[in-house]
């Protein structure tokens, strides 16, 4: 997804002379094209995330469209106050991009875990929060994010995310129907869409056909889509690689409770814990039950329940 981001970024910079890319000294050989083509609009700010965010705010104040980039944990938790005070409070159009969001860097340890990135960014008034599922969706969403009048955060992956087929195009702020189905709805954000698609393929062979909606936009939450889904499905299964305190699951649960919808709610995702040492991402996913196997089980149970 980083490669796709680099390509989409370059295209955006070609189109719009206001696009300025800032990196917190990350992305070795990922942004070479941009650096060569637009050297003054590629800035390695250094390992100084606070400065990167404040500088981005200053650029936005002067009418530019800055994009700040770092590893998700260093892009969100570390300069949280700078984002809050200098970008969100003034409502400036800065796009923050966190690479390796969720537990993509699981094996690098707790410092690199960013299960809290979506929740943190969702806390800020006026912040749009997105988590595309694959390179194509990222490429579709980036120009839309750059049209926003205010700040936004986009969680992206690392390298080699498989493509996910969707029945609808990706429109920022709208849930995207990936697979039509009935009775049970699987709701995903970020890279979990792929596991859901793989699970649905297996389930289809057994005659279980849930629908799959992908919420690449975590905030603002597409509540109109939730209303439609709740009216048609008896169970909603949210699959996310995100803290249970914030993120898609928390948003859906709160909406369901407030709407008084009778729809059952199931959340598959990591718990509110630190994962010590350097576990593989797959281990985290397996252990905490939000991978393909867990999705299949949850769908089967909901289908007959």
């Amino acid at each position, binding site marked *: 997804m980083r490669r796709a981001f680099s390509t989409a970024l370059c295209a955006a910079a070609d189109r719009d002379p206001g696009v300025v890319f800032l990196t917190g000294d990350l992305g070795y050989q990922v942004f070479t094209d941009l650096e060569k083509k637009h050297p003054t609009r590629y800035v390695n700010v250094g390992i100084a995330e606070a400065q990167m965010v*404040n500088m981005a705010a200053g650029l936005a*104040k002067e009418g530019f469209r800055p994009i700040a980039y770092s590893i998700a944990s260093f892009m969100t938790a570390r300069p949280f106050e700078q984002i809050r005070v200098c970008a969100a409070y003034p409502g400036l159009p800065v796009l923050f991009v966190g690479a390796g969001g969720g537990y993509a860097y699981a094996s690098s340890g707790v410092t690199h875990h960013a299960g809290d990135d979506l929740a943190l960014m969702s806390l800020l008034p006026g912040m749009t929060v997105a988590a595309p599922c694959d390179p194509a969706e990222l490429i579709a969403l980036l120009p839309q994010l750059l049209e926003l009048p205010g700040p936004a955060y986009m969680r992206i992956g690392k390298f080699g995310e498989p493509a996910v087929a969707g029945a609808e195009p990706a429109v920022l702020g709208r849930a995207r129907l990936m697979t039509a189905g009935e009775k049970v709805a699987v709701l995903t954000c970020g890279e979990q869409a792929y596991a859901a698609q793989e699970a649905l393929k297996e389930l289809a062979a057994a005659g279980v056909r849930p629908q799959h909606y992908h919420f690449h936009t975590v905030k603002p939450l597409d509540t109109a889509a939730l209303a439609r889904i709740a009216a048609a499905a008896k169970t909603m299964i949210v699959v996310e690689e995100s803290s249970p305190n914030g993120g898609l699951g928390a948003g859906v649960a709160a909406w369901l409770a407030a709407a008084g919808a009778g729809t059952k709610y199931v959340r598959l995702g990591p718990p509110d814990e630190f994962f010590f040492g350097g576990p593989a991402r797959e281990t985290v996913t397996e252990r905490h039950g939000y991978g393909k196997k867990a999705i299949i089980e949850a769908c089967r149970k909901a289908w007959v329940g």
Partner: protein
Amino acid sequence: MTIEELEKKASEIRATCVQMACDGRVGHLCSSMAYVDVLVALYHGGWLKHFPAEPKHPGRDRFILSKGHGCTALYAVLADRGFFPVETLAEYNRETSCLPNHPCMHTLPALEMSAGSLGHGLGVATGMLYGLRLKGSAARAAVLLGDGECNEGSVWEAAMFAAAHKLENLLAVVDYNGVQAVGKTDEIAGFTSLEGKFRAFGWAARTIDGADMRTVMETLSAFPFEKGKPSVIIARTKNKVSFMENDVLWHYRVPSEEERVKALAELGAAPIYGRKP
């Protein structure tokens, strides 16, 4: 304006700060009083290009008050320059006022940025200047920082960036008044030199008597101090009210009526608002 006129203006602005602290019932008086000479030199002395009738004029120089708690001086100067009516100053710190005790750009659009949390202004200014350079603009930026604010690491991240990118249109002024919220600035910083630190970060730095208008004006006229480097003035400042000098208490205290009268008498000036027509 002549030096004498600028000095007189500075006294009026200080008197206004005292009056606003009393009317608004909120302290941080010294945080405003100390840097008044520098602020008056910047605005009334002609260093900052500004357009009161068109605050967002693209050719303006950008001024950022990074130590937002010391905002009464800025409000007073902006009103005095005609950005908004001086009588608005009487509403300082009222619930519905456009002048809260930490500046908010949404209520007072003449401001470049909101402030209140320390350590942000310098970084934001570097972004503005980087953008202005991309646009081919020669506009400058001045940032007013507190000496206590320089405890913040983000100040030094910004300082490093400014020097690395040769932002010679950047002027930082550190209000070196010696006190911060709960102590003396030098003690907390381990008695290390602010000028030395900025120099080590690649800046052209000068420590001056920031309470002497002539010195301040002369220093500003020498900007940029070195070609290709951002400039910083470490301004040794004074409140110019004897009983408020060098005392942490006056970081917070709202003057009593007796103290207010005494302060205005020492300043030999009246506030710029509340005058009988």
